[in-house]
C-alpha cells in the first residue's frame, strides 16, 4: 500500500479538517483513484467542493504532484506512489 499526503486549502481544507491528511491507497494508484478514496472518506461535503453538480464533472483545477503542476482536466491517470504529496490548487472566480 502507498501512503500519500494530500494538502488542501480554504473550504476544501475545512472539509478534510487539516492542512495535510495522509491517505492510504494502492501502490501505485492513479490521481483519479486517490480522489475516489477521498470521496469515500469524506463523502458528500468533499464531493460538493470538487464536483460541479450542474455538469456532474470534476471542476477544473491545478494540482502540485510533488514538484510538478498537473491538471484535473487531463492528468487524472498519472500514477502516484508511496511518499508522494499532492496539493489541490483550487481556483477562485473574479477577485
Amino acid at each position, binding site marked *: 500500500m502507498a501512503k500519500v499526503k494530500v*494538502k488542501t*486549502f*480554504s*473550504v476544501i*481544507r*475545512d472539509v478534510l479538517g487539516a492542512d495535510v491528511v495522509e491517505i492510504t491507497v494502492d501502490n501505485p494508484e492513479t490521481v483519479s483513484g486517490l480522489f475516489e478514496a477521498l470521496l469515500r472518506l469524506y463523502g458528500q461535503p468533499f464531493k*460538493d*467542493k*470538487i*464536483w*460541479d*453538480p*450542474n455538469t456532474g464533472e470534476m*471542476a*477544473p*483545477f*491545478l494540482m*502540485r504532484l510533488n*514538484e*510538478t*503542476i*498537473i*491538471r*484535473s*482536466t*487531463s492528468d487524472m491517470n498519472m500514477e502516484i506512489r508511496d511518499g508522494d504529496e499532492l*496539493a*489541490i*490548487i*483550487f*481556483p*477562485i*472566480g*473574479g*477577485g
Partner: protein
Amino acid sequence: MAKGFKYGGYIGQLLRVNLTNKGITKEPLREDWARDFVGGVGLSARILYDELPPRVDALGLENKLVMMTGPVNGTIIPAASRSSVCAKSPYTGSFFHSIFGGFLGPELKFAGYDGLIIEGQADYPVYLWIDDDKVEIRDAGHLWGKDPFKTQEVLRKEIGDEEIHIATIGLAGEEKASYAMILCDIRAAGRGGMGAVMGSKKLKAIVIRGTGGVTVPNVLKVYNTAIKLNELIATTPAVQGLSQYGTPRNVAAMNEGGILPTRNWQTETFAGMVNITGEAMREKVVKGDRACFACSINCTKYSVVPKGPYKSIINGADYETIYGFGSACAVDNIEALCKADELCDEYGIDLISTALCIAWAMECYEKGIFTREDTDGIDLKFGNADGMLQMIEKIGKREGLGALLAKGTRAAAQIVGKDTCRFAIQNKGLEWPGHTCRPFPACAVGYATGPRGGSHHDIRPTPEKSGLVDRKILEGKGALAAEINHWLILADSTLLCHLAEPIWGPIKINDSLIEALNSVTGWELDYQGARKIAERQWNMIRCFSAREGFTREDDQLPVRFMEEPVPEGPMKGSYIPRETLERLKDDYYTYRGWDLKTGNPTKAKLSELGLDFATEDIG
C-alpha cells in the same frame, strides 16, 4: 421601462449635470444605443467617444465623468449590483472604466436614471444631491478636505436620511492625484484616477436617494432566472468559499502553485503567506460578512483591529490588499494590512497602485538606488510594515518620497532613471493586480492588449490557472483572450459581478449571462447576438484608444515579465519573452480582424460591427 422605454430593465432616462453653468437636464436614453451597447461600460464608451474631442485633457474642462448602471441593476438577479464610472483617465491617457459594487447603482435607477453624465467644472466645491426627480448642485465647501467616511457621516446627518447612498472623493481626489479613487459607500471605484477626474470638477460627492423601481416585461421569468442563478452560486465549486473567506480564499493555494506575486514580483512564492491567508484573516480580524444589493455571494468581510498601532475598521481585506501590501511588500502581518487598507480609503487612493508604488520603492531601496535620505529616514526594506504604512501616509499627503510615488511607477521610474523602469510593474501606466501572466500566455496577451493595461478585469487568468485550458500551449491563445474579453465586457455592460466568473464565463460568454440579460430586457439574444454586442463594445473602446494615439507599440507587458523567468517554485522558469508576446499579439489581432501593423480595427471590422463612424478618426 418607465416613460415607455422599449426594453425591460431600463429606466429610459439619463441625467446630465453641467457643473460650469449649473445646468441640470434629463434626457431620453437612446434605444438604439441601449440595444447596441447595453449599458455600463459599453454604453459609456459609446457616449464618451461621441462627446469627447480627441486628446482632451483628462483633468480639464472638456473631460466627462459617466456613472452608468446596466439593465439588471436593481432587479433580483444576484451578483448584479455593480455600476461603472468611466472617463478619459489622467493615469493611462485613454478610456477607462472603474467598477464598484454595493448599493449606489441600484439606487440611481430607483431615483429614475440609467446613468449620470457629469460635465464642466465648478468654480467652487460642490456636491450633487439626487432625490428622485429633484436634483440640486449644493455647496460642498464644508466637506472639502474631509476624508470619504467623514464626508459620508456629515452628509447623512445634513440630509437626515440614513438610507442615502454616497460616492465621494478624499484628499487625493481633491488634489487631482493621479490614482485617486471614488469611494461609493463602502466600495471603491478604485482604479485609473476616476477620483482625480471628479476632483478636477470640484465635485466632492454624489448623493442619491431613490424610491422608484425597475420594471421588467415578465416578472416570473426574472424570478425563475434569479432562482437558477442563486442555485448556481451556491453549488458551483469555484464560487464557494467566498462567503466564508472572501476573495483572500485563494491566497494559500496560489502560493502553493507558485503564483503569489512577492517582493515586487521578484518571485511568486511568499514565505510569510500563512499569516495573511483568508483563513488567518477570518480567525484574527473578521467580525462579520456583508453583501451587495440582492447578492447571495456575501463576499465582503467586515474586519476590526480593536487596538494597538494597527487599530482599524475596514470592509475587507480583499485579495488585492493581501497581495499588494502583503506579499508584494513582503509584509506578513494581517493587522498591518488592515491598517493599510483603511489608510488608502481615508486618503482616497487606489490601493493596488499605492501598494505597487511602495513595492517598487522597496526594491529601489534594496538595490541601493534609494537611501534613507531619499526615503525621509524610513527604513523602507521589504517586510517593514511600519515603513510601508508611513509611506502610504506620505503618498496620501504627497510629502517627500510620497510625492514622487503619487505619480505612479511609470512616471516615478522615468524621473529616477537608473533602469528602474525594468521593475516598474505596470503597463499603459497602470500597476498590476495580483494575478500573474508569466505562466499563462492568453492572460499575457490579454493584459498587453487590454485598454487599461494592468487590469485583471480586461482578461482573466482563470482558464489557464484552473487547467481548463493547457497553459503550455501558445496556439489559439489569441482567440481565447478575445473571447475572455467578450464575456468580461458584456458582464461590465450588463453590470454583473466578476466574482461569479464561472457562471458568466469563464472562457467565453456563458448561457447564464445571456439568460440574465434576456430575462430582464425581454430580448431574445442567442450566443452569436450576444457575442456581436460584446465585440462591438470591445472595438469601440479600442477605437477610443486609437484616436488618442495608442498603437501596437503600446501593447506591452512590464519589462520584468518579458525578461525575468520566475526564479523558484512550481512555476520556475515561466515568463513571456518579447518574441513570444509579439507572436501572441499577431494571433490576437488576426483573430480580431485588426491591422497587424497598427493594432487598430480595420475598416471592414468596423463596418461589420456598425462602427463605421470611427473609421476616419483612427485612420
